[in-house]
């Protein structure tokens, strides 16, 4: 039987929602084709992810445990995934599109002499290969692409599918993995910064994004307060990550992250195409900008023309009032 393999990303002991989205899509495609959808977890102790994964119904969970999987280390990851591909012989290896998978996809494709389809917003599988769509030209349009052969490496933009629980008892199989440290070709010297935000931006249901209009500590405090009342993740435009005002991990857009929340509130953001590339799939878009001609208003469901320093305080108060009512 043919197999679809989903790579499951885990951060801080938590399975990433975006991986479950991809797994759910693979489950659905496998059911249509009469194939098998399986999952692969690489962690220091990968067995810890089993319980969290089972409800999402892969036919099988492959685990590989090694201390190196605590960090993102390119060589061990490539080696491990290569080993899993050899063991499992999947037709498709699917990833959530993250910086982690972007680091690996090209090398995996070249190592196997087979195709990679990165950053897909939808994909389907048939007996020959994979087809689907991906945003191009700073996400202004979609291109239709196809790759035949096996295995095809696919990565999927977060928010493209819903994670769905399903019946079934997954079998668990441990794959052995050993790694000689002499083979580490690069050295991880240090972790320079780590985001302390409890809410993962790419999974957040609500995102508050700050732009150049947020000039000072007072503005930042208002953003924090709004995020707190809405239990939202905070993101930023390049203008503010570049200026060192927000952590670079929080950048939303073509260079930064893709977000797809139920509610996105852009504060003091003009709506440059490279920023919009990362947030245009938000369900409801609210923009606060003092320039009535700011391009962000072209895509905003609710555009508030006004000074953020005057709009945010009553906005926060009113939301707090509604929430406590």
């Amino acid at each position, binding site marked *: 039987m043919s197999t679809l393999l989903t790579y499951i990303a885990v*951060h801080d002991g938590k399975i990433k929602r975006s991986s479950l989205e991809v797994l759910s899509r693979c489950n659905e495609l496998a059911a249509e084709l009469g194939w098998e959808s399986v999952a692969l977890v690489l962690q220091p102790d990968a067995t810890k992810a089993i319980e969290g994964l089972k409800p999402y119904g892969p036919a099988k969970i492959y685990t590989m445990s090694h201390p190196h999987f605590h960090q*993102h280390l390119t060589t061990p990851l490539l080696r491990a995934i290569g080993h899993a591909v050899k063991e499992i012989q999947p037709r498709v290896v699917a990833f959530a599109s993250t*910086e*982690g998978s*972007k*680091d*690996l*996809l*090209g*090398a995996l*494709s*070249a*190592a196997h002499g087979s195709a*990679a389809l*990165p*950053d897909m917003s939808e994909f389907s599988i048939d007996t020959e290969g994979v*087809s689907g769509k991906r945003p*191009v030209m*700073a*996400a*202004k*349009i*979609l*291109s*239709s*692409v*196809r*790759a035949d*052969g096996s295995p095809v490496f696919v990565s999927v933009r977060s928010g493209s599918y819903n994670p769905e629980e399903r019946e079934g008892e997954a079998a668990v199989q441990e794959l052995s993995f050993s790694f000689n440290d002499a083979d580490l*070709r*690069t*050295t*991880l*010297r*240090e972790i*320079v910064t*780590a985001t302390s935000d409890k809410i993962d931006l790419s999974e957040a249901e609500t995102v508050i994004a700050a732009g150049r209009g947020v000039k000072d500590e007072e503005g930042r405090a208002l953003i924090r307060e709004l995020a707190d009342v809405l239990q939202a993740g905070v993101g930023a435009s390049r203008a503010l990550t570049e200026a060192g005002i927000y952590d*670079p*991990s929080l950048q939303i857009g*073509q*260079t930064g992250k893709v977000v797809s929340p*139920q*509610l996105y509130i852009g504060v003091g953001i003009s709506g440059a195409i490279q920023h919009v590339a990362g947030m245009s799939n938000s369900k409801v*878009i*609210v923009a606060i900008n003092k320039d*009535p001609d700011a391009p962000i*208003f072209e*895509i905003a*469901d*609710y*555009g*508030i023309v*006004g000074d953020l320093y005057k709009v945010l305080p*009553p*906005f926060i*108060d*009113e*939301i707090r009032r*509604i*929430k406590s009512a």
Partner: protein
Amino acid sequence: MIHFYVCLKQVPDVYAPLQIKDGELIQDSGRMVLNAYDASALEEALVLTEKHGGKVTAVLAGPEKAKETLRKGLAMGADEGVHIVTEEGSAYDSLYYAGLLAAFFRDKEYHFISCGKQSQDTDAGLTGSMLAQLLELPYATNAVGLTLEDNRLLVKRQGDHGQEMIELPSPGLVTCSNDMNEPRIPSLKGIMQSKKKPVETIQASSLTGDGIRSVTTLLGYEEKPKREPGQKFEGDPEELAITIAGLLDSKENLM
């Protein structure tokens, strides 16, 4: 003497108006630019070699008319250029270009190859790590800062949850984000000098190696599903704030 090769790609300007007709993308073919991420990769290589001494070679694979983009790299300050001339109007994918570049690099000596983290038109982000794999080089992706230390490159890399510092030995390959510098605008002097700089021209067909082929097919283009038009509210900030908060609650059920 550090020797950098920087891979430059000519890409369509994402700001140019575009149109889709019968699945084909119609765009002003005159509006082609140097990929922004490659400009950052080049800028960083120039800064490092200005500081530590060394040489920067710009390499571009593309049709005849892409030479102007290679020239731009030379005008920014690259010492020499290599143009791998491909057929006009062909849709090649990242594996094809990586294969081509690998065939070119196979017998070369260098310290580092630097690429953009992705092409700004397709956002593929594959060629760099493909090339590293084909050349069996260690690599690091999505660099937001580079420092040289005894012929080793310290790569500050942007990951999903923060930044990490990776030590990359030579020879190695790095892919660069545009979040590390403002690429210089070529000066008039730079543009004049660029005309005298050596450019080696190689026909793509003369490069051989297994795997110089595209493995993906571009079937066509389409518009994104349109968003429902929204509403713009102007007036007293306090009233606006209360109105919108109310709508997000009652109409959108988001509270």
